């Protein structure tokens, strides 16, 4: 049954829940602490071969020839593939018209065709009887290249004189294409009111520019894929992905196999954060499986490959100008953003442009965003994609405005902060939202007024917005004879959504969370479901689960009416109890009674409206060592509106994890390249993510402004808190040592230089 969840407004006033809002232990988590949980990387099939990928040592080069003969002859090697092994997609690309380019990029990224476009770009792949043999075989593949000067800097890439990476690329401006080849793939713009007039009405105007470096999602489990392409034409895939249907779709397009022949199995995922939506290895494993005589082939990326050849998030260059009057009202704001897309178009600059000023009511706005290709790996999503960069710039400018106007930074945000009924930059109108609540809550936190005890300590705040996502979800539920329920959805569970979904169904049916057994089904056994991204699962799949719950209740009421020979309206259900005439039954009692002879199962697919955006306000204390430039995070409070915390302990964990990623983004993480465009810091030793002693105990504070678009008030919670930390920390550093940082990361060397420059100036 296809049902579009209605966007009726849910009345959450005074709703009390039995299950929602508790934090039960999920029995499936036991497997995680005993090591029995099976991740993609743990896949092992009889007769399995091991794959390895040959990658480009050049950032930009023409491929003149590839000779695989010697590798193919090696004992133990069963198959070698290059882009020549892909099906010819010309017809398909032409038929897709404007969207055909995207398929070409996808395929070219998986194995380079005539050019390599970044250091680490895949060129060939091998399957052998052991990983060691496969790796040795890579050395025997002879590739000759013709070097081309790489372009790695965003602004240089935008220059008219820069080498052009794709000769057929033109700048797209909402369907209008530029005339000449370029590295600027697209330009987006938002404009309303009259910014010039608005600036003239301001008593203070701040104009600054910012640079942020490429960072990686940093998941611990590397990309991996195991494929078995059987002789009967059936392709089975086990991999580490956020979306089993998304993998199926991509593999189908790239290899031109109808989806009915492809089955993708969900497994536990060892971290993703947006980096495991796009396929890299699945088509390679599939082709190798076919070519090796239909053997299963497993490919696991090394960590070096994960950093150089998957999808980090964009480096960016951002200019912001903002003006405010002496009452603290923002009168105008402009932003100019250029995001590095990597080797192919498609950064998150559009999303960033739509979110950058979203927390504030500003009548006069101009935002320009540019998507720029450079010779770096093709960027992918990373938790609230593009927004952390943009908010870093915006919130640092706001901090400077507050300083010059002598207005408390949280008061400034209260004055300008959006409320229900306000309109966003992009025209969407806010329904019930919780921004003001996060500000009030932050102001009342003991942290906000606690004294700072030492020299070079400072406190900073920052707010942020994330739209959250909706999308398509499917669920099916069947009743077991003991009255418990088996629930299946198509949503890959990254960090605990199975529990959230169990709890939402349990709440609907009036049973315990333990009475619902939730699993993620593979692509053969559930309706289409979008991937686990955009903080959409508890919302969209939650709606699907709620709907199957209601279907179960309705079906049981009908059966009871039939059995007791009563009109349907005389069979009532409320708070987990069926009332049939003068008899009462719990859900479990009635279900097990009515389903023994005639099983009951239901299913639904939804694509709900009513996505509720999230807001957050963070407070951080830092201590700066003026001798070394090292920043110590002393205390961190993250206030976030989650609508309704289904499982508060899980939500706290999401907030703490996202903040920690933001801290790494702020202080340490960046891709470092040499002049030839090769990444230098390709391990966790030098691509330094926060370790246990680096971060304090982060205090998550959950605010609940229920989302009227969801039966239980849910807003996505997983991504929001990666957005404010870089700005909050930059503002705290300013409070500590009086320097305004405009570059991420604010690593010790950069901060030290800023401190020295300040020292020089004050001399």
């Amino acid at each position, binding site marked *: 049954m296809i049902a579009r969840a209605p966007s009726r407004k849910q009345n959450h006033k005074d709703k009390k829940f039995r299950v929602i809002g508790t934090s039960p232990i999920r029995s499936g988590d036991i497997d995680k602490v005993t090591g029995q949980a099976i991740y993609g990387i743990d896949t092992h099939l009889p007769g399995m071969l091991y794959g390895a990928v040959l990658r480009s040592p050049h950032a930009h080069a023409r491929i003149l020839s590839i000779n695989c003969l010697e590798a193919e002859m090696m004992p133990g090697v069963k198959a070698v593939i290059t882009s020549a092994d892909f099906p010819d997609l010309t017809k398909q690309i032409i038929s897709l018209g404007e969207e055909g380019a995207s398929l070409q990029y996808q395929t070219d990224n998986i194995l380079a065709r005539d050019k390599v476009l970044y250091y680490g770009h895949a060129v060939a792949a091998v399957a052998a009887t052991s990983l060691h043999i496969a790796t040795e075989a890579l050395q025997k593949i002879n590739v000759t290249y013709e070097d081309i000067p790489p372009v790695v800097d965003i602004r240089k890439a935008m220059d008219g004189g820069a080498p052009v990476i794709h000769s057929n690329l033109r700048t797209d401006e909402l*369907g209008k294409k530029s005339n000449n080849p370029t590295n600027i793939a697209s330009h*987006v*713009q938002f*404009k309303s009111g009259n910014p010039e007039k608005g600036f003239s009405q301001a008593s203070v105007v701040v104009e600054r520019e910012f640079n942020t470096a490429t960072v990686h999602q940093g998941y611990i489990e590397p990309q991996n894929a195991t494929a078995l392409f059987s002789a009967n034409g059936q392709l089975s895939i086990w991999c580490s992905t956020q979306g089993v249907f998304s993998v199926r779709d991509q593999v189908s397009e790239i290899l031109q196999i109808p989806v009915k022949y492809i089955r993708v199995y969900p497994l536990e995922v060892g971290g993703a954060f947006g980096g495991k939506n796009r396929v890299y290895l699945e088509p390679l494993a599939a082709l190798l499986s076919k070519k090796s005589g239909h053997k299963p082939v497993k490919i696991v990326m090394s960590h070096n490959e994960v950093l150089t050849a998957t999808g980090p998030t964009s480096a960016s260059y951002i200019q912001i100008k903002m003006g405010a009057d002496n009452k603290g009202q923002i009168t105008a704001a402009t932003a100019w953003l250029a995001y590095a897309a990597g080797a192919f178009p498609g950064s998150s600059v*559009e999303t960033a442009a*739509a979110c950058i000023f979203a927390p504030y009511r500003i009548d006069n706005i101009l935002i320009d965003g540019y998507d720029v290709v450079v010779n770096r790996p093709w960027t*992918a999503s990373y938790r609230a994609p593009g927004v952390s960069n943009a908010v870093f710039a915006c919130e640092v400018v706001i901090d400077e405005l507050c300083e010059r106007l002598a207005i408390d930074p949280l008061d400034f945000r209260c004055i300008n902060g959006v409320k229900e009924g306000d309109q966003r930059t992009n*025209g969407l109108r806010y329904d019930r939202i919780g921004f003001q609540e996060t500000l009030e809550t932050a102001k009342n936190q003991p942290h906000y007024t606690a004294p700072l005890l030492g020299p070079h300590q400072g406190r900073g705040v920052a707010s942020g917005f994330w739209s959250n996502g909706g999308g398509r979800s499917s669920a099916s539920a069947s009743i077991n004879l003991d009255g418990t329920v088996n629930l299946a959805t198509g949503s890959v569970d990254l960090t605990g959504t199975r529990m959230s979904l169990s709890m939402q169904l349990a709440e609907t049916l009036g049973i315990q969370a333990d009475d619902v057994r939730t699993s993620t089904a593979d692509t053969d056994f559930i309706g289409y479901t979008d991937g686990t991204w955009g903080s959409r699962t508890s919302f969209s799949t939650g709606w699907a689960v709620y709907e199957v719950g209601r279907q179960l209740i309705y079906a049981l009421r009908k059966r009871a009416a039939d059995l007791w020979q009563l009109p349907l309206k005389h069979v009532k259900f409320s708070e987990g109890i069926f009332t049939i005439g003068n008899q009462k039954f719990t859900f479990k009692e009635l279900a097990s009674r009515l389903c023994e002879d005639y099983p009951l199962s239901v299913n639904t697919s939804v694509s709900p409206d009513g996505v509720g955006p999230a807001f957050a306000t963070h407070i951080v204390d830092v201590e700066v060592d003026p001798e070394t430039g090292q920043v110590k995070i002393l205390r961190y409070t993250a206030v976030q509106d989650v609508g309704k915390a289904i499982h508060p302990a899980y939500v706290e964990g999401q907030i703490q994890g996202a903040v920690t990623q933001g801290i790494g983004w702020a202080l340490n993480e960046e891709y470092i390249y040499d002049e030839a465009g090769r990444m230098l810091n390709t391990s966790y030793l030098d691509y330094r993510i926060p370790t246990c002693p680096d971060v304090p105990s982060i205090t998550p504070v959950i605010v609940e402004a229920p989302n009227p678009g969801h039966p239980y008030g849910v807003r996505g919670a997983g991504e929001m808190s990666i957005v404010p930390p870089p700005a909050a920390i930059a503002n705290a550093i300013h409070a500590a040592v009086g320097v305004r940082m405009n570059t991420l990361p604010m690593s010790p060397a950069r901060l030290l230089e800023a401190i020295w420059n300040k020292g020089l100036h004050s001399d």
Partner: protein
Amino acid sequence: MPRVQIPALLRELTNGQDMVVVPGETVGQVIENLDQSFPGIKGRLCYGNKLRKNLSLVIDGKLNQRGITQTVSEKSVIRFIPAISGG
């Protein structure tokens, strides 16, 4: 009649106007009529018979999934915004 908020990059086609009143009972009809007044604008908003994939439809401040078949009222305000992704 429905009103269409013109995306910033398309205002070069509407002589700089950012809000245009256009007759039509569905979004599709509105776009056709818009194209009558401002030739070329349909090609910018649509690809074939659908809204471009990277655009979302907003009616009266709310995201709408029905695209060009969505009916609109006399008071509707229609906007086209970039689709938003997640991670």
